[in-house]
């Protein structure tokens, strides 16, 4: 099943290379939709209460690498995110890309195969191959179909990511040497010596922090986002950034629990700076894509906060932030793409008053802005709230700093929305833009539905991952330090940490929104 999901886009990509522009578009759409259907089947047959690893495949390739695939709930949700966004990306490029279409579609399909591979790989080296392999199609996508500064952006993207990853590769080789296996499940249960864990953790951190991206190695992201074509930004923000968070969950936390616990203050400091600094930077941007790119960095800091809170609320919250951000930032880039296609500028000042001539657009843009801000009822709220609760429990100060990010996030997103959609219509050409057409509606509506679904009933997304988070916490338990939260019994109900997360998750719409 998983191999099939990798093979379908791969083969379609090869075929697309030999077709005409229209043929390539259609085969890309059909292949990605087929993969989405396969993904739904995967989700439907995944048993949340079953074994940790499901759909396991294992074929030895000789040497020390094996074609070993398998997923747990976390990987399942991220694969779902990838296959969900892919058809939308193809649709978003339907008309925006008019030159070298077959190559473009092939690059995207290759990208999809590699992304699924990253989340499904159960062999350390196979994971690395997929993880790094993604550089090639993305480099080409930014470089060939990107904006004016595309070459610098593509170099920066490529070399930053590569530099981070090679350190991880050294660490992987050391791990293979020490543990004598390349199997990820086996390594997740292997106890490395605490001293070694530190080094390994740092090497993995170098890679995932760049991918995530965390402050101060985030500078490639705004460039890459701004220059990439719309669909490239969607995939970059939607899925590629999630590989960093996935890496932390799959490698750093379970494989090096002691080091992870030791590095909590380090990660919190970096994330705290990221939240405040990048939010402030976002506030002063003139370029819409750049603003959203900086907001991505800030949102990813919630992920690292939540993950390194090392408790259930934090980790589940981080996972939901990842999924939600994948949808929301993707949708926001699409929203930018919609007006960029009409006016060919991303300058915020060139727009204004779009609510008058593009009401449908204004509605969708509003929904995604609110989701990005974290309004209750949208997907953004659930994840951010849980991750903040977890962070607060680990360290009150970190919780306070992280929460300012919500306020600043509301500030820059609402400011953006106000400048683009409200106000007077300053520019005649912007005022003459037509509203969303059917194709664009079809792109935005599914994301909007998913965002609301995740906001109102996040349980469907949390259920497959709950057992995995539990296993992760079990693994972390011996090394997690005492938190500075002094939990005391309330008057009526016991405040035990584990159910608290679920309560707030299940009653999202009613939960108080004082964190905003």
């Amino acid at each position, binding site marked *: 099943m998983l191999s099939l999901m990798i093979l379908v886009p791969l083969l379609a990509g090869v075929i697309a290379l030999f077709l005409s522009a229209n043929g390539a578009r259609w085969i890309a759409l059909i292949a990605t939709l087929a993969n989405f259907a396969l993904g739904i089947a995967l989700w439907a047959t995944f048993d949340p209460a079953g074994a940790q690893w499901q759909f396991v495949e294992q074929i*030895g*390739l*000789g*040497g*020390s*690498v094996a074609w070993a695939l398998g997923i747990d709930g976390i990987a399942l949700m991220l694969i779902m995110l990838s296959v969900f966004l892919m058809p939308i990306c193809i649709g978003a490029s339907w008309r925006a890309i008019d030159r*070298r279409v077959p*190559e473009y579609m092939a690059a995207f399909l290759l990208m999809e195969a*590699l992304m699924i591979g990253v989340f499904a790989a159960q062999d350390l*080296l196979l994971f*690395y*191959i*997929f993880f*790094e*392999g993604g*550089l*090639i199609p993305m*480099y*080409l996508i930014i*470089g*060939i179909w990107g904006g004016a500064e*595309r*070459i610098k952006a*593509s*170099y920066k993207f*490529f*070399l930053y990511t*590569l*530099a981070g990853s*090679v*350190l991880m*590769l*050294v660490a992987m*080789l*050391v791990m*293979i*040497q020490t543990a004598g296996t390349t199997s990820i499940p086996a390594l997740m249960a292997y106890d490395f010596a605490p001293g070694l864990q530190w080094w390994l953790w740092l090497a993995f951190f170098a890679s995932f922090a760049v991918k995530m991206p965390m402050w101060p190695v985030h500078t490639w992201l705004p460039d890459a986002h701004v220059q990439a074509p719309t669909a490239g930004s969607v995939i970059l923000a939607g899925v590629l950034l999630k590989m960093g968070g996935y890496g932390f969950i799959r490698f750093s936390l379970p494989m090096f629990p002691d080091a992870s616990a030791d590095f909590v203050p380090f990660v919190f400091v970096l994330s705290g700076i990221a939240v405040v600094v990048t939010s402030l930077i976002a506030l002063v941007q003139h370029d819409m894509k750049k603003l959203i790119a900086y907001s991505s960095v800030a949102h990813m800091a919630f992920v690292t906060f939540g993950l390194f809170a090392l408790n259930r609320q934090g980790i589940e919250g981080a996972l939901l932030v990842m999924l939600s951000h994948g949808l929301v930032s993707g949708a926001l880039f699409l929203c930018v793409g919609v007006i960029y296609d009409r006016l060919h500028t991303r300058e915020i000042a060139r727009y204004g008053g779009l609510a008058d001539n593009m009401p449908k657009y204004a509605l969708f843009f509003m929904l995604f802005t609110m989701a990005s801000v974290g309004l209750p009822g949208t997907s953004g709220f659930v994840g951010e709230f849980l991750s903040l609760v977890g962070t607060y429990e680990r360290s009150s100060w970190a919780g306070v700093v992280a929460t300012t990010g919500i306020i600043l996030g509301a500030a820059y997103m609402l400011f953006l929305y106000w400048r683009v959609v409200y106000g007077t219509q300053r520019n005649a050409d912007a005022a003459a833009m037509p509203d969303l057409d059917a194709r664009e509606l079809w792109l935005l509506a599914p994301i909007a539905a998913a965002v609301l679904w995740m906001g109102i009933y996040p349980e469907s997304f949390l259920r497959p991952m709950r057992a995995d988070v539990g296993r992760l916490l079990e693994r972390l338990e011996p090394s997690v330090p005492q938190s500075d939260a002094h939990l005391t019994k309330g008057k009526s109900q016991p405040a035990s940490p584990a159910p608290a997360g679920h309560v707030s998750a299940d009653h999202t719409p009613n939960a108080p929104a004082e964190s905003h």
Partner: protein
Amino acid sequence: MNFAAFVPETLLTVGAIVMMMVAAFMGSRGSAVTTWGAVLLLIGATFALLGAPQSDGPIFGGLVVADGFGAFGKMLIFLSAAVAIIAAHNWFERDFEHAAEYPVLILLSCVGMAVMVSATSLMSLYVGLELTSLASYVLAAYRRSDDRSAEAGLKYFVLGGLASGILLYGISLLYGFTGSIQFDGIAAAFARDGTQSLGLLFGLVFLLAGLAFKIGAVPFHMWAPDVYEGAPTPVTAFFATAPKAAAVLLSVRVCLDALGPAIDAWRQIIAFVALASIILGAVAAYGQTNLKRLLAYSSINNVGFALVGLVAGGAAGASSVLFYMAVYLVMTLGVFLCLLRLRGEDGEPLEAIDSLSGMSQSRPGLAAAIAIFMFSLAGIPPLLGFWPKLVVFQAALAQELYLLAIVGFLGSVIGAFYYIKIVKVMYFDAPGRALAKGGNRIEGVLILLAALIVSPLGYLLIGPLSEMTNNAAGSLF
């Protein structure tokens, strides 16, 4: 004595003499005959290799040995030399009238290389090296009418002569202080006296310096860019592949066999040479505008990676070097075959990196092939070029050479920059000058084959190839 073990060399020597006669009597008309004759001879020699009995002991009184390591090396050398001959034929036919003795020189060079990889004595080492080098000097200056080619030949000859002198001096020191020119005798002396003996130490350093020159490793690399640029392109393709592999393999055997007990002494030297090659090969390529010069630095860079495996030492290290060289040969031959196809509309060969600009639109297939080779040379998975780098560093990490591995990997990131720059020129830049269409069909098939091996499909070869290299490396010990 078992002559059967020496069949490939005998075949090539006799064949080379016959071909020389053909070239002498038929003149330039004989070029097709000598070319395909030489290719057949090389393929025949490869088959003879497969069938040759693996003698246990040394032959010719301990001058050479026919073991698995040598056989693997010869296989690589013969096959890449055959490709180099095929590639040259079409190229010389087009621009240059006199090509009949070209294959003969390569055949003779191959005999020298075969002796190099199977040498177990300093004497045969030197003879093999010189036979290879002499043929190479002539090849570098093969286009007499071209100033650059003549300059390349002269430069190569003078510097090569100097290196041979250094090498000989080292050999004489080693002989003087050990009383033996046999590898096992030298090893015994090192085991006895260790590196306390200053004479032995000096001999070792000079020997390694001479070998480093032949490999083209930093700090003895200066000749490489000039010679690569000046020599006719098919000759450059040959230089970058077979002789390089032979010299690397020779160094492996010398270090592990003759200097085995002195591993602590040479490990530092090779580690320095390896890292210096990786970093200089990556940094110096930065400003190059000529593709052949760039590939010269790329080969310096690659040799550095291969030597990382040698630093690791042991059977695992030797095996990783063999693996690295095997994949390196495929990638490099692939790139050069593409480069040979690169001609302007009037058929003039192009060498400037600029001339590739926008090539992905005028020659999409060729551009895709070059892009695959470039990403692979940069060591980006999922292309096969990633795997040999992984293997050599795995060997190094097994010996706990952490710093070497980290610096080496970071060096590969620097190197990646100029490889992806080529991709940028081909894919991102606006189309430049028009390129000639078409090309030789056989070369096209070879390019396709190399690209397929380098593509992710090549991962299926990892199993068999690593088994072969492990067996070959095992025969050293």
